[in-house]
């Protein structure tokens, strides 16, 4: 699999008796010359496809920046939302640049970096549904992308309300398709996705009607839990992206407006 495995085997054999030297993932990436990023491509403006069906978006650029910093070439591996983690675990990708919320539940399985982006949650509704705010969703049919931060929060809200119905769709695209068809009355999604879908003009009869009272959804890059070397590197990279102004630049390019802060008042990470 790895071109260097023969060489590595020789090295290991030579050093086995003296020291337990082991190349970690960071070394592997640098020596292989390729950085493979898991990116979700139906999540505009973070990940999408252009007219010739090539990957574009904030996450795609972010992966390219990371590859440049490492001095390797980037390879974008499209993964549907539910496939992000299996793709990493199986070694098909090195890093997830996939707008992944840094929940404690997930951190039991993968290693999360510091936040590299932050989402505000917005409510988008079908104009015919009469939903004008978050509270109006009570008793309605609502949906979100399965497994996302907002889906988990929304499902919990619907359960607390005790009325209405929650539907998880497997892709963000299906959620907006269902919304524009009127299959669901409203959805909670990241405000960036909501704006991009409404402004894109592809969906008729839907509009963003307000914010959802959920915590800010901090998203992190992720890699294998035990790869501390790589996680350290990624943390520094995120820090440098902000420091050098590249974060602002990318935000302006893909989203626009006020740049969300990535730090939380009153606590260290």
């Amino acid at each position: 699999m790895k071109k260097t495995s023969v060489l590595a085997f020789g090295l290991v054999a030579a050093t086995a008796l003296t020291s337990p030297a082991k190349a970690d993932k960071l070394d592997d990436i640098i020596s292989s010359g390729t950085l493979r990023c898991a990116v979700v491509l139906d999540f505009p403006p973070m990940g999408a496809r252009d007219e010739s069906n090539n990957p574009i978006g904030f996450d795609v650029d972010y992966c390219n920046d990371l590859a440049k910093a490492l001095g390797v070439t980037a390879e974008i591996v499209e993964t549907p939302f539910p496939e992000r983690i299996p793709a990493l675990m199986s070694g098909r990708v090195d890093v997830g640049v996939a707008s992944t919320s840094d929940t404690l539940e997930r951190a039991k399985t993968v290693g999360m970096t510091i936040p590299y982006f932050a989402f505000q949650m917005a409510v988008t509704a079908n104009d015919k549904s009469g939903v004008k705010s978050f509270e109006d969703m009570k008793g309605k049919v609502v949906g979100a992308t399965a497994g996302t931060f907002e889906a988990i929060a929304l499902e919990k809200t619907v359960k607390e309300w005790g009325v209405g119905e929650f539907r998880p769709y497997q892709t963000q695209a299906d959620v907006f398709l269902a919304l524009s068809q009127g299959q669901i009355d409203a959805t909670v999604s990241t405000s960036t996705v909501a704006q991009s879908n409404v402004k894109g003009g592809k969906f008729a009869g839907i509009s963003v009607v307000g914010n959802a009272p959920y915590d800010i959804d901090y998203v992190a890059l992720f890699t294998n839990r035990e790869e501390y070397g790589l996680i350290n590197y990624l943390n520094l990279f995120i820090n440098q992206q902000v420091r050098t102004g590249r974060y602002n630049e990318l935000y302006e390019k893909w989203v626009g407006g006020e740049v969300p802060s990535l730090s939380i008042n009153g606590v260290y990470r």
Partner: protein
Amino acid sequence: MFDTALTLADLGFLAKGAAMTLAVTAVSVLAGTILGVVFGVLRNQLGTYWSLPLTFLLDIFRSVPLLIQLVLGNALQSILKLGWAPFTTSCVVLSLYTAAYCTEIVRGGISAVPTTTRRAARSLGMTWWQDMRYIVAPLATRVSLPAWIGLTLGVMKDSALVLWLGLIELLRASQILVTRLQEPLFILLICGAIYFIISFPIARLGGYLEKRWSND
């Protein structure tokens, strides 16, 4: 409906998806059939009792949804750090799935060959291998081929599920285009038509063979 933003390049994208569907199907059916023949003969030779573990194992592939099999296969290869591409994982899972059904077909085909015919062959001095090669194989193939064609088509249609692992096959390619162009009905109809165009003639051929070969 004919006022569409679908371009020629997008049709090419769909064709690439269809090619992926066919590639996954071809690999899986080929590998699955080879395995199926081996298992089928084995089950026939071992008898009901001794082939019980094999029967049980293959039965699992026919009693668990393919979607679950694919997800599990993918999770397993990730746990074992095999680093397989989704294409490999899909083909391995689909091959085993095909093999499970193919074994039944092969077994049915072999048991359709009258025991007396086989005894006659052996008493003419044919070895087991000669009996298998010149007597059983031609007769069993005749019985099994229509069912095997049905299986191939089944695998072709079931291969749509590999989209779950991120492979861009025909259905996934259509979904990507739906996302970008927002013409769900039109694009999905094209997708369905492509499946139909691939499947229908082969299904008809199977029906024809079944009719022709059962009448003599």
